[in-house]
């Protein structure tokens, strides 16, 4: 995983609550066996009509937001299915920061495995960011979102911050504890399946 870099971009406002992962990436695209190339299917049913023409009233199709790296959305973003394809699609499309008033647990966890920074903020701040038309900067090291008018601080678990900033490979980290895992297995009372 690449280390997380600070992001400067305009904000794409997705003014919806309870955006579920079925909307982020519909099921027909879960049949692929690789991790790449999901960006073109992001929000597929909201982005395209039945003839696969772009719907002009969907925010991602407004050229103003081309190249945006920051998505802002309402409460409970990423709820429903555990499909990591949702994060792969957001990442492949170009988003590296998702800001919401709250996230569903599995989606939140999936973000960190793919170098995406999810930021939780108060609903009032989300409402302000949904209106923000200028370029904003997200600085993970200092935990600050800078808009032309203010600096908004955010909290993040220090362990998760480190993972993003250093782009750590989770499994390689865990292998440092292989002796502890073996030790645990020796005393485990749960039998094997087979």
């Amino acid at each position, binding site marked *: 995983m690449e280390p997380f870099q600070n992001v400067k971009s305009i904000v794409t406002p997705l003014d919806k609550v309870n955006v579920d992962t079925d909307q982020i990436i519909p099921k027909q695209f879960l049949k692929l066996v*690789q991790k790449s190339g999901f960006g073109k299917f992001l929000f597929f049913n909201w982005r395209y009509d039945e003839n696969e023409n772009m719907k002009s009233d969907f925010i991602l199709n407004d050229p103003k937001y081309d190249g945006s790296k920051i998505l802002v959305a309402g409460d409970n973003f990423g709820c*429903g299915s555990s499909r990591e394809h949702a994060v792969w699609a957001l990442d492949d499309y170009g988003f590296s920061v998702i800001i919401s008033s709250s996230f569903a647990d599995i989606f939140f966890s999936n973000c960190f495995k793919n170098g995406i920074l999810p930021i939780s903020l108060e609903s009032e701040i989300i409402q302000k960011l949904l209106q923000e038309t200028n370029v904003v900067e997200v600085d993970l090291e200092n935990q600050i979102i800078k808009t032309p008018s203010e600096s908004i601080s955010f909290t993040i678990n220090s362990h998760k911050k480190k993972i993003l900033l250093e782009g750590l490979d989770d*499994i390689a980290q865990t292998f440092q504890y292989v002796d502890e895992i073996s030790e645990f297995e020796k005393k485990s009372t749960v039998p094997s399946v087979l």
Partner: protein
Amino acid sequence: MGKTLFEKIWESHIVVEKQNEPALIYIDRHLVHEVTSPQAFDGLRMNNRQVRRPDLTIATMDHNVPTSDRTLPILDQTSAVQIKTLENNCKDFGIKLFDINSPNQGIVHVIGPQLGITLPGSTIVCGDSHTSTHGAFGALALGIGTSEVEHVLASQTLWLEKPKTFEVRVEGKRNNPHAVTAKDIILSIIKNIGTAGGTGTVIEYRGEGITDLSMDQRMTICNMSIEGGARAGLIAPDQKTFDYLRDREYTPKNYETLVDSWKENLKTDSDAIFDKQFILNINDIAPQVSWGTNPGMTCDVDEPIPSPDEFSNGDVNQKKGAEKALEYMDLKSGTMIEDITIDRVFIGSCTNARLEDLIESSKIVQGQKVASNVHAMVVPGSQMVKKQAEEMGLDKIFIDANFEWREAGCSMCLGMNPDILSPGERCASTSNRNFEGRQGNGGRTHLVSPVMAAAAAINGHFVDVRKLDLN
């Protein structure tokens, strides 16, 4: 201070713990299916890693599989590739697979308990949010993403932040156990706590309204914990749990010794304190029907559809959400639920496709015919459920009523196989999600219990099953 059941399971699985950091938790059971695993196996290959404990890992194919004639080739080539990929991965990494022709094939959350793979007090993961189902046996069962699938394959552990505890207590004894089902209890809970009400928590379902339920019904409750946003759902194991798991194909040899220790350890202490609590009385619960595009948008069968104002309780964003949902569902506030006509009925999914679900719904169907405006299907949760149902003659009851009787799989719960709704079609479904397009692009899903779905199939519109003679 005493401990909750969750805390006891958590503490007994800690491999590494540091202050203010996630804990490394040991995983006792890893269930794998074809959709969320291919990229994980690729990751292992790229880094030259092995599966640490193939003997704790079990795979099946459920999401993509056709539910029609299994002797025919799979027509959808991308589905066929994904299924073949799982076969190859299981062969390469030495994992036991119940493939499309296995008598043990089925929805991963239906076969785990049926085969005695799910055990009380264990930790279970699967790359699927409905893994919470296994919590019905007093297991800590978590849905995970594909990166975590890879992590568990490689290390048999996961880094997890300790969730908070949430007690949901259902009090009272049901007056009407065949009409007000486990599905109505859980939909009612979600309606009350909201779809994010359980975020960051593990729910323990307690009270007489829960302990009275059979194991099949308890699985329906725990299955939809994720729809209330929870990390997992749990029910403390009791004699029903122990009896259910005895003498299954993979029940451990030292089972009675395990039962003795479970009886002693797997319960919440009387002086334990939960971080959060919600209480409801079972006799305040009516049969539920969802009207919107998330499982919290649900009302009683004898109620009108609420207005966005009533639903949102003053929250502007929720109000907008409800307006959008009514537009998508092509419904109007004030319409009585029983006046809604339907086109399709789906009895299936990891929520409601176990034997008891089929027995209960068959009682309504027996001697009747599906309404002429309705296309109805039953998709058993596993090949074993299908076989048991056929031995009881349930297949004939459904087929005689003009239901389709299918092979096991996830099917129209999410429509990754050919079983989907056409745009605009309205479905009474026993599944778990009524998200936009979930059952097919433009399709409209109403979540209901198996008996409510069966009654809707016969009548062509929703009916209050409390009015029927179900005994």
